[in-house]
């Protein structure tokens, strides 16, 4: 096992730093909202700062190796260790989670959803950050599982307490559905542990992911297929892949804006990350057998998600369904089992995080102002809030995979890679065409949404005007709108502060994707070592 152990306290600090903030906040009465916000924001900032320092210390020449590697015994009786490390696959997602938490904190400065209680809300978000970051650095299956499950709790409360009208149904469904998947995943982890220690060459028992990746190949194909099945359900529910996606629209629609953003931007990636980090490297024979099925579900998801979007009448639910389609692209890339496909999938995860996170932010802000997200009732946003409208248009363009913006790099290479997958070439060529059709549908639902919501004249109920819009007055419309509807105002300072990192990221990664590919590529090659030349 070839790892770099320098600076190995860094990841632990970066992961658990948010809990320090939580500890401080616990002892401050909940009445002092401003103080809570300040502490939470400061903690998130400090976490990002540690993250940036980590990136600075990261050896990019060795992006394929685990770095900052720490390994101490944890639960001795089952040989589970506290093993953490960071390579090119983990680094982007690790950074993404801390950045998303920061921007969500900034957004929360004046957007604490009802029924208030900033203290609890912010504490939950910090706990969430620790568990998400922990999942991305964990290199031990039990540790991974603990973090993976820990993510559920804060999100469950966020939806259940601060959510919409059907929050209880949605939060329970989210929690239990994911738990259901995780149960199978845990079973698979345990079985893997036993099987490897039984059949392993060294006879050594370990939950260490690098160790298992090196020795998982010894298992028989049938065993691998069953193990993969367990993991598949766990990860596929989280992604979510068709047909395990039905919790997602409910959870997203009911969650508060911050919850939706974190859910879309980071939590969905836990599933796809699980495939790339655990299932694919450890169980190569099973992955080959499963690949055409996963690819098939992925492309069904692409088309199906797009059709679901076309049928929606609620903007937020539409964005939620678009996640099903986008994660379909990611899964298609993963199922090709090639470097090109996996690279694109990894890029797609980050891109989807930034773009869909932004879309949920915009949806949340529109809801704040109009108190509805029903597409039929909205219209002419570009006129009342030009900046908001253009940001929405920008995100829609990024989401449909416009080259020059980040989304393209998670979509185009996936389609290309499906032409020459690791196995089942002919099947995947069909998938390739279907996925390409999916990009057309994506353009359809996103631009149609944009057309209905942003173009045209604002509807009467929000324009504050008599119905007769004299064309001559149209130019001054924004002014009039403001006079009548005080809550309909353009993008605010906190929104700018929260959004600009994401918007900047979408542009920068889109124009110069090598920033990310250079980090991901070596690690992906390592992950696919068991597959020979990808």
């Amino acid at each position: 096992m070839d790892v770099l152990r320098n600076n190995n306290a860094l990841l632990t600090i970066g992961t658990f730093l948010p809990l320090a903030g939580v500890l401080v906040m616990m002892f401050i009465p909940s009445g002092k909202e401003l103080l809570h916000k300040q502490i939470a924001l400061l903690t998130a900032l400090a976490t990002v700062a540690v993250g940036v320092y980590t990136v600075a210390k990261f050896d990019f020449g060795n992006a394929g190796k685990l770095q900052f590697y720490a390994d101490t015994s944890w639960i001795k009786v089952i040989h589970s260790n506290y093993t953490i490390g960071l390579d090119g696959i983990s680094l982007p997602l690790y950074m993404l989670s801390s950045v998303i938490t920061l921007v969500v904190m900034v957004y929360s400065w004046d957007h604490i959803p009802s029924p208030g209680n900033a203290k609890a809300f912010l504490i939950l978000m910090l706990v969430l950050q620790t568990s998400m970051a922990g999942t991305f650095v964990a290199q031990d299956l039990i540790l991974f599982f603990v973090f993976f499950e820990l993510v559920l709790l804060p999100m469950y409360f966020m939806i259940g307490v601060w959510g919409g009208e059907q929050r209880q149904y949605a939060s329970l469904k989210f929690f239990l559905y994911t738990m259901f998947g995780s149960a199978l995943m845990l079973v698979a982890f345990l079985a893997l542990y036993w099987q490897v220690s039984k059949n392993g060459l060294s006879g050594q028992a370990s939950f260490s992911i690098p160790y298992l990746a090196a020795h998982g190949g010894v298992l028989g194909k049938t065993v691998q297929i069953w193990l993969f099945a367990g993991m598949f359900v766990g990860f596929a529910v989280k992604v979510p892949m068709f047909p395990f996606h039905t919790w997602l629209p409910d959870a997203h629609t009911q969650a508060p804006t911050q919850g939706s953003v974190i859910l879309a931007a980071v939590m969905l990636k836990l599933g796809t990350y699980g495939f790339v980090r655990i299932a694919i490297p450890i169980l190569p024979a099973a992955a080959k057998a499963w690949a055409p099925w996963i690819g098939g579900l992925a492309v069904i998801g692409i088309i199906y998600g797009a059709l679901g979007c076309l049928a929606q009448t609620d903007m937020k639910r539409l964005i939620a369904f678009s996640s099903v389609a986008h994660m379909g692209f990611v899964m298609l890339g993963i199922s090709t089992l090639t470097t090109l496909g996996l690279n694109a999938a990894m890029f797609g995860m980050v891109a989807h995080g930034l773009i869909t996170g932004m879309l949920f932010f915009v949806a949340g802000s529109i809801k704040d102002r109009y108190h509805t997200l029903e597409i039929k009732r909205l219209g002419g946003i570009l006129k009342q809030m030009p900046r908001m409208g253009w940001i929405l248009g920008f995100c829609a363009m990024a989401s449909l995979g416009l080259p020059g913006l980040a989304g393209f790099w998670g979509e185009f290479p996936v389609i290309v890679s499906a032409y020459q997958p690791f196995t089942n070439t002919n099947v995947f060529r069909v998938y390739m065409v279907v996925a390409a059709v999916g990009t057309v549908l994506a353009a359809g639902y996103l631009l149609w949404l944009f057309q209905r919501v942003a173009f045209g004249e604002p509807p009467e109920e929000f324009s504050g005007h008599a119905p007769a819009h004299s064309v001559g007055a149209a130019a001054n419309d924004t002014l009039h709108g403001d006079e009548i509807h005080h809550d309909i105002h353009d993008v605010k300072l906190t929104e700018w502060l929260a959004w600009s990192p994401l918007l900047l990221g979408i542009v920068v990664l889109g124009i110069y994707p090598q920033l990310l590919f250079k980090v991901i590529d070596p690690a992906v090659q390592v992950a696919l070592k068991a597959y020979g030349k990808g």
Partner: protein
Amino acid sequence: MLAAETGWFLEHAYLIPVVPAVAFALIIFFGKRMPMKGSEIGVASMVTSLVLAAGTAYQWIERVDFFSPAGDNASALGGFGRAFRLNAEGATFVQPVINKIVWWQSGGMEFGLGQHIDGLAVMALLLVALISTLVQIYSLEYLRGDRRYTHFFAALTLFSAGMLAMVLAENMVQLILGWEIMGLCSFMLIGHWWEDAANSRSALKAFFTVRVGDIGLLVGTGVVFFAASAYATRHGSNGFSIQSINEWALSGTGSHTVLLWGSVALFIAAIGKSAQFPLHTWLPDAMAGPTPVSSLLHSSTMVVAGVFLVARLYPLFHTGLDINVAGQHFNLIAVIGGITIIIAAALAFVQNDIKKVLAYSTVSQLGYMMMGLGVGAWTPAMFHLFTHAFFKCCLFLCAGSVSHSGSHHSFDMKKDMGGLARKMPITTTCWILSTAALCGVPYFSGFFSKDEIIDNARNNNYQVFFVVGLVGAFMTTAYMTRATYLIFFGKARGAAAGGHAETLATADAHDSHARVPAMANAASDSHDAHDAHDAHAGPHESPVLITGPLVVLASLAVVAGYINAPVWPFHTERFAEWVANSSGVAFPILDHAQFEWVNAVPSIMLVLGGFVVSLFVCRSIYGEARSPLRGITTRVAPLRWVHTFLVNKYYLDALYENVIVRGLVGPIANGAYWVNQNVLDRIVNQAGIGARKTGGWVYRNIDQRVVDGAVNGSGAVTRGSGTALRPVQSGKVNQYGALLFGAAAIGALVLVIVNT
């Protein structure tokens, strides 16, 4: 390998798209604070690009001349009769100038971003930069006072940047980048006045239709990437590189099936972008945008991108579709091009909107270019692309000029025009010169390009397409004569006659909608003349910012052809030498026809015939005298049917919009969603209920305490979840709690199976 004769401009040609791209960002962020609202940044960037492009072209010509044997035997070759030879065969060729940086990587393989400068790229760069500059200058006046003036210039600048980035693309991914950026900008510009639902619908339609074609682009790029990969890697490149793809296609190492599918897929993209049949329907709707946009879109950017793609990867198409193989009289490109020529020209006859006539004319001319490529007439097709840009851009800008100053923002030829020739002499002259060029009147630029396409179809044994080309020439002349007659001659009608009260309400007068509020604001502008004219000055000539570009373009429409005029007394073939002879190392061997007057006679006769017949019919139908031809399309049944069929655009729009799109958005999407809610989600809920029932059964019959405790436990967790949670719907909790345990049970089962 020949020694490189190069220079600063050639090495730094990548700056040509970078300048407007940066300018776009500047306009977006600072445009509104500039004295001219950002338009000065746009114009300045385009002028800079033009200078850079001119420098590049100059150095490229130097490079070509350096390698060619001093053009000594140029006249002896005659026409397009120059053969292209591969390097291996010892003939001269000019190495392209390729520079790139690493853009992305995968599997350790690095993919570039950069420039591929050869004759074709240089020609297109110069063309795009020139046309863009003129259009931006024209827009300064035309869009003055528009409510989104800054946005307009930003989008226009980005549009040019996209096209420029595409034409010098080093690889397919970069080509897609430019390609899609143009799609985005066309969306923004066509929907520029998005307050009107019709405009935003047109914008959506344009983007969406092109996107349908893009399926082919994505798939084709993938196919070709892997197919060319082995060859390319051996030569130190990758399967996205355009030069590698071309070399591979000619190397004979690729399987013909793959070449065929790759080229078919890519051609589908070209169909969408270049508005070829059957994806041409978006282009006429795209007229909803401001006229300068139509002009730019139709002359040198966007729609020619598809033609350019085919030309750029010509070796691939040439090999894949068996172009010029003996005994092959048809291929996909020629067929689509040929069909497009005829059907689009036919539609141009029934349009009342001047811009729509020109739109269908563009579709038809693009058909010529495609057909030319399809019959192996690469150089004439590219030359037609070159000359067409000038006269089509000029025609659109003339149309804009007419609506700006002559017909009070109306584009309806029948209602608001007529007799404008005397009122607008400059515009009229420019229009007529450009029309002559478009029709292919001898010694105008279109003659040297379009006739060569027709002639080469004959020469290369594509008899059917030779006839199609001739028929197209006849139709072109006829519909352009009709339009010219309606606009500039005959009796003045509607706004052209001075009255314009009704025109604002006409549906076709796109520009009018947004211009009215613009007028309301115009007081702050130093634009009194405009206001004055709006207050009933009647038709008059346009100001110099509009006529200036017109004059430049009309002059070019006349003289551009002489770059490659193989006729007495010129005998030049510079275009063939500079552009075609130097399109990279790899190029198929083409046999171009020698120009001879005798071969040009049929088309000249038909052009003349088209003019005479059309003039006669127009005078009868639209003129003042009574005539039996008047109203013939309503009286004679077969003619009425044809007329209705044409007016309804072959019912293709109805098929696409009412059947396919509505079907998709309506029943199919709703059906899928119904399945989602009532099948998939129900399974989840039923699983929960089922598990709960099982749990209940276990509870009652087997082990009361364990299940009881667990369900309560899960309920307790939920209850403890926060004071804000109302008493939990216990049914749901139990249901899902049971589901969890059901899951664990299944898991245990798996465990057992695996371990045995």
